[in-house]
């Protein structure tokens, strides 16, 4: 019996963090068992944002599903569009024109930048930097969103990609604007690094906090920056190249310790790689059509298909079963956020309430994707 047990008897108590809480990134709820400030256990509760998207997909034509995919991970709709279109194209065997492929890559990488802007900003906000990094990263995201607005007319749910290409060609002023933005972004990414890489408080709060060991990450099926921060060199753009990713040169940043700080660092490093990819894609973007000859109503042959991409948050997959009609028989999404959340419980045990929020923020989830 320790002194503490004799002198001070403490009782664990239950605290509901969420569903309405400033830093649960939506309506996530953690039923947390606390001993004072120490987290003994958490029990995730979700489903508050369930909209039955997978069921809705069975009622729509294959093209009509694309707007629904926008609403999965609403932070990065372009990537969702891409993953879904790739799945249908794989099922139908449609060949996408060169220019469309390049546009898709540019959009997907811009989306990764926009997503990581939010991820980094809200992570630092969770760490308690009173909205400053958040506003800074949002400033940059706004500029990316401006570009998306230029091509798709939307600022949130873009609905830009189509089966067999993209909905419309980019306007003339897009590429010059993009080139200008890339230069700015490079500077801003350096700025985030300069501001926070060696901030003693941030290091104290994030380094060594919420370590996700490699084995646990693999067992839980973690993907994306979270897995790479744990030292798993897995990136679908490299390991299972889709679209035209095999043509580009880029590195896969990998963390060493798998702590919150590494996850943050990996994201910043990935932003640099995305900039690199966009620069290469911009250089050799060909002229030509942006959409393959696809019938108005797509009727894929009966069968099933699984296509996955490296979305900003990790592996995003679409599994489609078709019975030869105009709507899928079943469409299942492999959500990144939900599966990345599975390791949360093992990561937060024994840490403090403040760390719980930081670790949760470092995973970077979107509730739209968790609940679907």
């Amino acid at each position, binding site marked *: 019996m320790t002194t503490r047990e004799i002198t001070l008897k403490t009782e664990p108590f239950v605290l509901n963090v969420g569903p309405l809480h400033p830093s649960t990134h939506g309506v996530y709820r953690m039923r947390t068992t606390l001993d004072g400030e120490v987290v003994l256990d958490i029990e995730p509760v979700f489903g508050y944002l369930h909209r039955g998207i997978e069921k809705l997909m069975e009622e729509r034509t294959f093209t009509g599903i694309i707007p629904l995919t926008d609403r999965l991970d609403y932070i990065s709709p372009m990537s969702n569009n891409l993953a879904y279109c790739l799945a249908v194209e794989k099922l139908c065997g449609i060949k996408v024109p060169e220019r469309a492929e390049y546009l898709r890559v540019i959009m997907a990488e811009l989306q990764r930048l926009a997503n990581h802007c939010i991820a980094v900003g809200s992570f630092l906000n969770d760490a*308690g930097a009173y909205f400053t990094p958040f506003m800074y990263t949002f400033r940059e995201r706004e500029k990316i969103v401006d570009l998306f607005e230029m091509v798709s007319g939307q600022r949130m749910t873009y609905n830009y990609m189509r089966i067999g290409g993209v909905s419309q060609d980019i306007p003339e002023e897009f590429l010059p604007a993009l080139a200008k933005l890339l230069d700015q972004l490079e500077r801003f990414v350096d700025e985030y690094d300069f501001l926070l890489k060696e901030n003693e408080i941030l290091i104290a709060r994030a380094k060594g906090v919420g370590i996700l060991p490699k084995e646990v990450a693999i067992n839980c099926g973690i993907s994306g920056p979270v897995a790479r921060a744990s030292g798993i060199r897995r990136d679908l753009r490299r390991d299972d190249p889709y679209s035209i990713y095999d043509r580009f040169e880029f590195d896969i940043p990998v963390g060493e310790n798998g702590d919150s700080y590494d996850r943050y660092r990996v994201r910043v490093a990935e932003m640099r790689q995305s900039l690199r990819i966009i620069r290469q894609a911009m250089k050799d973007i060909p002229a030509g059509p942006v959409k393959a000859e696809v019938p108005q109503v797509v009727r894929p042959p009966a069968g099933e298909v699984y296509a996955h991409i490296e979305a900003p948050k990790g592996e995003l997959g679409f599994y489609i079963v078709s019975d030869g009609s105009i709507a899928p028989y079943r469409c299942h999404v492999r959500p990144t956020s939900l599966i990345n959340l599975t390791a949360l419980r093992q990561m937060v045990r024994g840490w403090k309430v403040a760390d719980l929020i930081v670790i949760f923020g470092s995973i970077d989830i979107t509730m739209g994707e968790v609940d679907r």
Partner: protein
Amino acid sequence: MPDISPLLTGHLPAATAAYWPGGYWGHWAFYTTALITFALLMVMGAIYIERRLLGRMQSRLGPNRTGPFGLLQPVADALKVLIKEDIIPQPADRLVHWLAPVVAFVPVVMIFAVVPFQKGALLADLNIGILYVVAVSSLTTVGIFMAGWGSSNKYSLLGAMRNVAAVVSYEIPLVLSILGVVLIAGSLSLNEIVLAQDIPFIFLQPMGFLLFFMAACAEINRSPFDLMEADSEIVAGFHTEYSGMKFAMFYLVEYAEAIAMSAIISVLFLGGWRGPLLPPWLWFVIKVFAVFGFMVWTRATFPRVRIDQLMAFAWKFLLPLSLINLFVTAIQVLTIPDAPWLVFIINTAVMILLVIIWSGLFKVGWGRVEV
């Protein structure tokens, strides 16, 4: 009819209370009214400055719609919050819940009683002024703990517990860093301390200033030590369950505390009301807002520390340094009392050396798991 012309011109008579128009009671009535007005006006100014400065630092505008340059924003905020419904949670301890904002607010206003706005222009020239400030300022914690306990909300309780823990720890480096100033000035009275500052004490006590500033930030829960109302962790901390005017009182407490601490810092280290050209009270206000602006800057820059790191910072960083500072100052007062510039050079060197050594020895994340 007492002669009030000096009050109107802004040059308050320096005479002691007994020689005032109306005697002690006239003095008391005037300063009590003036202090409360001053505190409230300064709070409004502070809210405006904080929101605008934060806005600029976060690359946005801040409030600029209500009145010229958004100057009326605090008024609009106050009006809004006044007409809000006052909600008391059903399981709350009603009496404690009701009393808490008052208990928290009164000590903060009381701090201003000993703050000199000009030579001799203060409500009570206590000869133990700074001791009084330290004693009274920590009373606010009682109110905050009452709020946390009385709300019967777990977030509130967590916030209140954090606050008590922080204040108890940070009182010690706070007092020890004041002692250096007291040694040099040779008095505990704030009025005397200002009069002793031919050279502002920030030069003679650079480390004292640094330590006092950090300890004061923790004491009044300014960022990066704002654990008790850490909005990303425990929602709003101790005032989660407060609304309407009672919430406004806590808001007021928060800013009045910040202003009071800024006032104490400018009195102790920045020469209080002393300054060339401008009238003394204006110098005082400028200095207070300058210190407050610095607090806003830290708030916009740093992430928040964790509760164990907060404690470690007080005991392992601030306490040893403030003890060393006190020791060094004591020796200087004994040996070289008449060479301020020598003291300045020695103390600056000592500060730089110690801070560098200690930052190597001690990291904020000392208890972290090294991987």
